[in-house]
């Protein structure tokens, strides 16, 4: 089905997204001059910088998670395309306060290469950077190839809290890596979204088919099914895929994120949540907090993803730390 989107010039999607977001943020965000990036206006003087970003079209991720207790800036590539090194470099310079800048972004070839080039350019200008990629998608077997999907929310949340209190960049990076070690997700696609520039669906899926494990750009997953199973069957299968991967087991305390990939309803996510909780409960996994809604979307793709993050007292404190951004705010 062709896309039908309320937009203006398809060539100017990203600057218009940034403009609209800066306006909506009511003074707390500002564009980084000259490039498709934005940053907080209340950046403290002494702080490890946190820069996030990736291709656009997944809003609110990454661009709307900028603010106190979250990222200091985000860089916006074109739709589904990693940002270019010049943008990343400018944003890096904008948030560097002498303590270096931590990069958190999804593990995709394009993002990796562009951020790496920017990191080298930053190093040439004397700015230290460290990178902790989001790589939570268990649908990819080889660990170093794992894509970054909605688990990005927890990783960015932790990184935001960590960079607020860390004395050094190395300390911050190590803390985020530690939290990331317990982060796993899997998605399921029910219907394709469309590229806003062309109106074409990003992938082909039969009217009745679904694909478990499909990535946030429609990258293939682990299992295509000829028909839509019940919420219970699907919820159990997705919980199993995630839980067996780490594995999460009896006595584990976790944060649970049910992410709407775009056009699914909160109704469906709530119905799935019953089953996820039942399955986790049977496995002895305790859910300490639940987040449910659109965190990382794929245009109007229908489907959802399930994320678990293993908690310890420190990670739980980072997740619970106060933050404020257009996409997510939390009291102290």
């Amino acid at each position, binding site marked *: 089905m062709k896309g039908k989107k309320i937009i203006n010039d398809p060539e100017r999607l990203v600057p218009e997204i940034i403009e609209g977001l800066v306006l909506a943020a009511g003074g707390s965000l500002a564009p980084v001059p000259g490039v498709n990036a934005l940053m907080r206006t209340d950046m403290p003087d002494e702080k490890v910088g946190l820069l996030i970003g990736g291709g656009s079209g997944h809003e609110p991720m990454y661009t709307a998670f900028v603010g106190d207790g979250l990222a200091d800036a985000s860089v916006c590539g074109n739709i589904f395309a990693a940002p270019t090194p010049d943008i990343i470099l400018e944003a890096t310079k904008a948030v560097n306060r002498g303590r270096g800048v931590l990069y958190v972004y999804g593990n995709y070839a*394009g993002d990796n290469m562009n951020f790496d080039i920017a990191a080298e350019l930053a190093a040439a200008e004397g700015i230290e950077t460290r990178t902790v990629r989001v790589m939570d998608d268990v649908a990819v077997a080889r660990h170093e190839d794992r894509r970054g999907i909605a688990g990005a929310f927890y990783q960015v949340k932790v990184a935001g809290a960590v960079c607020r209190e860390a004395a050094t960049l190395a300390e911050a990076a190590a803390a985020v890596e530690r939290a990331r070690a317990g982060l796993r997700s899997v998605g399921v696609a029910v219907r394709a979204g469309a590229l806003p520039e062309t109106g074409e669906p990003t992938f082909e899926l039969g009217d009745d088919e679904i694909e478990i494990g499909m990535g946030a750009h429609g990258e293939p997953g682990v299992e295509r099914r000829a028909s839509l199973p019940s919420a219970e069957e699907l919820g159990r299968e997705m919980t199993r895929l995630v839980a067996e991967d780490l594995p999460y087991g009896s006595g584990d305390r976790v944060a649970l994120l049910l992410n709407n990939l775009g056009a699914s309803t909160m109704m469906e996510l709530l119905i799935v949540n019953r089953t996820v909780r039942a399955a986790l409960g049977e496995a002895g996994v305790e859910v300490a907090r639940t987040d449910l809604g659109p965190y990382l979307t794929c245009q109007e793709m229908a489907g959802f993803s399930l994320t678990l993050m293993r908690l310890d007292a420190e990670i739980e404190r980072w997740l619970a730390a106060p933050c404020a951004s257009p996409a997510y705010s939390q009291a102290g």
Partner: protein
Amino acid sequence: MAGIGVAEMKARLLAGCDAIIAAEERLTEADRAVGDGDHGLAMARGFRAGRQALEEKPAEAVGDLFRHLGMAILTTSGGASGAVFGTFFMSAAKPLAGAEATAPALAEALRAGVEAVQARGGAAPGDKTMIDAVMPAIAAAEGAGGAAEALQAAAEGAAQGAEATKAMLAKAGKARPLGDRALGHVDPGALSLSLFLAALAEPAGDG
């Protein structure tokens, strides 16, 4: 065994850009089969900027042209292809420091480009990327006498290389997790590279 001068190389590179721009839909289709369906968009965006840079920026050496093209792609394409093709052309510039490109220099340029891409992205030959189109292009160009002949040979090698990616399992980029579902589909970046080299091989008109 004549080399190719700045003016002629510029005309050929412009034709290469035009070929990519014209192939936007075909490239996007290819990426829809194995990736996220944006390759044509990204390439057209990058090579349009590259076209403009070639036309506007001064070039004394042939390599300057490649550097302008690469820098424009790197800062406008985005995605994997922006980094890959940007790095490729910028690194290919180094062996082309003179006002004329000879056949050996052109082969050397392709090699420098692909080595930089490998260093950047960690992909190896056989991983189903544009590298698999460059490798046979280098081999073919190395045997050529003149520069124009080298480009001709490179184009043929790249076309065969791109075709051969159909039989490969993807190991890099967004097609990576496809596994054997990528079989039978050409790698979009390899296709781009071969289309670009094919246009580059055409003798330039009076550009």
